[in-house]
């Protein structure tokens, strides 16, 4: 009798087992649930900090994200800008090359584009500015990724920290240039370049009556890029090589893949696409260089890519989700009644991302209770 009692006390209440597989709607349900719970938590926290009615807050969020045509275009463009960085990084991640240097690669691309916009007009014909600007940005981003890539390929140098450090080198270089290139030396502001002539600016699509005229091209470029990356990873020989190298370098060597070549080739492409993002930011969006032009996309895109399980098409969804929340949260924070700091958005997205990261557990594992059997999710 006593033994029985003792047993009950010591019996574990539940234990965790790994799922073999999970049907798609269950995993979708878990993710949606995670986002919903996160939104409730966010509402509670907002209530606590600001005392604002959560429902009003969500209304303001939706309004902030899609409240008018301009906001919708802004939302689309920012989704695209986050997505393209996610696409770039995914190429590396598929190869298990933890490129967290998106920030630096974007900045280098932006620097190259800015330099072309600033110094080429008058020296070459207008169309040639584009011809130089595009490859310059791609190459700049590519080189910034190539440096850690080379050391990874030849010395197995830890790329996570290497690329991270490259971010700050690029950032300080950008700070240096914004200082040197600023109009009134010392104020650290370059200002809109070629404001009147629009040399090096991306062309507008559609007439003056079309709100999306300055946004559409940027969105289209990224959309095409998404399809290219999708096909490249799934159907090309290069993509196959990336997968094999990522899954097992030993296997890659065994079948005669030149691992170094694949690493170098892939990180260059990855960096070049980040450079392209920098080019769009300068040529298509801001028309200037600032130190915070990258806007944290290098990091956020890592989460975007990972949440989408490295699938370029899902990535469009995850970037949309994050940008939507950020836009909404910024709107809430900056509403006249609250007038809070923009960083409120980072807290909101941070919480939601942490919930989404956590919910993966319930997709991969199942909790089984000792007495009544059944999955808890």
């Amino acid at each position: 009798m006593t033994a029985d009692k003792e047993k009950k006390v010591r019996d574990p209440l539940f234990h965790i087992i790994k799922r073999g597989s999970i049907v798609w709607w269950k995993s979708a349900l878990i993710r949606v649930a995670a986002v919903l719970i996160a939104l409730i938590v966010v509402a509670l926290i907002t209530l606590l900090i600001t005392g604002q009615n959560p429902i009003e807050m969500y209304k303001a969020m939706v309004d902030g994200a899609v409240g008018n045509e301009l906001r919708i275009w802004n939302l689309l463009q920012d989704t695209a800008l986050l997505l393209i960085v996610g696409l770039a990084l995914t190429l590396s991640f598929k190869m298990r090359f933890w490129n967290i240097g998106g920030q630096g690669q974007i900045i280098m691309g932006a620097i190259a584009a800015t330099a072309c916009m600033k110094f080429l007009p008058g020296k070459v014909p207008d169309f040639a500015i584009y011809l130089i600007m595009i490859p310059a940005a791609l190459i700049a981003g590519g080189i910034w990724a190539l440096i850690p890539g080379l050391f990874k390929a030849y010395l197995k140098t830890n790329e996570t920290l290497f690329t991270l450090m490259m971010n700050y080198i690029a950032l300080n270089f950008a700070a240096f240039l914004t200082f040197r290139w600023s109009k009134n030396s010392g104020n650290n502001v370059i200002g809109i370049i070629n404001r009147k002539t629009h040399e090096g600016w991306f062309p507008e699509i559609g007439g003056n009556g079309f709100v999306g005229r300055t946004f559409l091209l940027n969105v289209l470029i990224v959309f095409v890029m998404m399809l290219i990356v999708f096909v490249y990873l799934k159907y090309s020989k290069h993509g196959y090589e990336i997968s094999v190298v990522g899954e097992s370098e030993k296997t890659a060597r065994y079948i005669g893949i030149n691992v170094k070549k694949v690493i170098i080739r892939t990180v260059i492409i990855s960096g070049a696409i980040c450079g392209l993002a920098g080019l769009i930011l300068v040529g298509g969006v801001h028309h200037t260089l600032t130190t915070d032009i990258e806007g944290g996309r290098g990091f956020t895109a890592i989460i975007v890519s990972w949440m989408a399980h490295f699938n370029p098409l899902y990535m469009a969804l995850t970037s949309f989700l994050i940008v939507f929340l950020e836009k909404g949260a910024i709107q809430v924070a900056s509403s006249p009644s609250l007038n809070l700091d923009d960083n409120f958005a980072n807290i909101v997205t941070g919480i939601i991302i942490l919930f989404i990261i956590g919910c993966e557990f319930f997709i991969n594992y199942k909790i089984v209770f000792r007495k009544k059997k059944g999955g808890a999710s």
Partner: protein
Amino acid sequence: MDKIPALELKNITKTFGSIVANKDVCLTANKGEILAILGENGSGKTTLMNMISGIYFPDAGQIFINGREVVITSPKDAFDNGVGMIHQHFKLVDVLTAAENIVLGLEGRFNLKTATKEVASIAQKYGFDIDPMKKIYEMSVSEKQTVEIIKVLYRNANILILDEPTAVLTPQESDKLFDVLRRMKEEGKTIIIITHKLHEVLSLSDRVAVLRKGEYICSIKTSEADESILTEAMVGKKISLNIERKEPNNPVDRLVVKDLQCLNREGVHVLQDVSFTARSGEILGIAGIAGSGQRELLEAIAGLQHISSGEITYIDPKTDKHENLRDKTPVQIRQLGVRLSFVPEDRLGMGLVGNMDIVDNMMLRSYGKGKSVFLKRKEPRDLANEIINSLEVVTPSASTAVRKLSGGNVQKVLVGREIASTPTVLMAAYPVRGLDINSSYMIYNLLNQQKANGVAVIFVGEDLDVLVELCDRIMVIGSGRIAGFVDGREATKEQIGLLMTKNVSKPHSEKAEEVTQ
């Protein structure tokens, strides 16, 4: 003699997802007894024992130790109940010393010096040879096993479970281990040994418990058992355990290796003065303690290992041209028209990509063919289906990730792919490791078929019984050097075992290379 049950299992059940690893297993082990748990690979022996040692927790069932019901939720619980397990894959921390590993996890005062003394006295008592201050990564496999056993004894375990302890030992080392185990038994300890080797069961144990497909079949007194009874109990039907061995058909030299030397990253010789010839229509066996240079040798031939000196010459069967394979990459070797297939030891880490499906794994060798930048998945899909049908691969479909298949089916996929390219040289490293008997015999048959087709087969094996039954010639390798050649039809296991330890010098650990990655 009174039998006092030390360990009793009642209706133990454990499932992993949809796989039932153990079902309603009841088992008793007595005090002062050596109990062998016999079963094929995948019969649930290890899972069952892991539940006693606290690695897994049973879904249902009860465990009694010395007549008292216990709940074992962690290895600590197991130690507290006097149960210690020596796992097949050693549970040791490489960068720590033997003594540090032995005291790992214990509570109370921390004093490595006294611990070292105690370790020495245990070693002396049972006749072990050990240096407590040596780091694990500098140790040979048998030394590591010694550390594992002392670790358990140091915790005063009365029930010792050993999982396939002889898999990595030479026959001589195995005998020494058995002596130690008998001594422990005399001390009244309960020894449970998991194995699938019949002769070990017969020579060592007092009683045998047989598991099949996760279920308890029977227990037999060893004195009343023989090989055929045990095999039948284990496999469930009578099968003949003879491997067919035909005379080689017109053997000609196919691969000539001369004075091969290879260094590892630390500059230590892993292969030294290795010379041999592999002939067509013949199976050349390679025997040796694990980590004696077998892997490096095959990888050197396949173009994966840097060679510091020596020559590897391939003789083309059609043109009789001599090609030097040294310093060529796998792709260059293939471009020379050399049809070399290689079934590596590490199936999912090297031969296949676990997370890719069978179709994509079929492409590994052939994806690069043609000028197109895109992949063609039709041919590999056909090949995948063909292999699934002809080798009876159990899989939901050709687009199932290889990782999800059982060990035997993984190996069939790998061997099937390597044979599909109609090789002239086929190298296979430990191709039946971890496979059940039926799959093992299917692999032996495939090798024999290749031999009949005139392929030069190089077979690296660990089970000496199989080597002497399957191979035409056997090369014995020890510490990276050739210890001798024997005729497969005349050699005995003992003879090979002696040769295996001939070149005993500083052993290089197999893991040393993985460390740096």
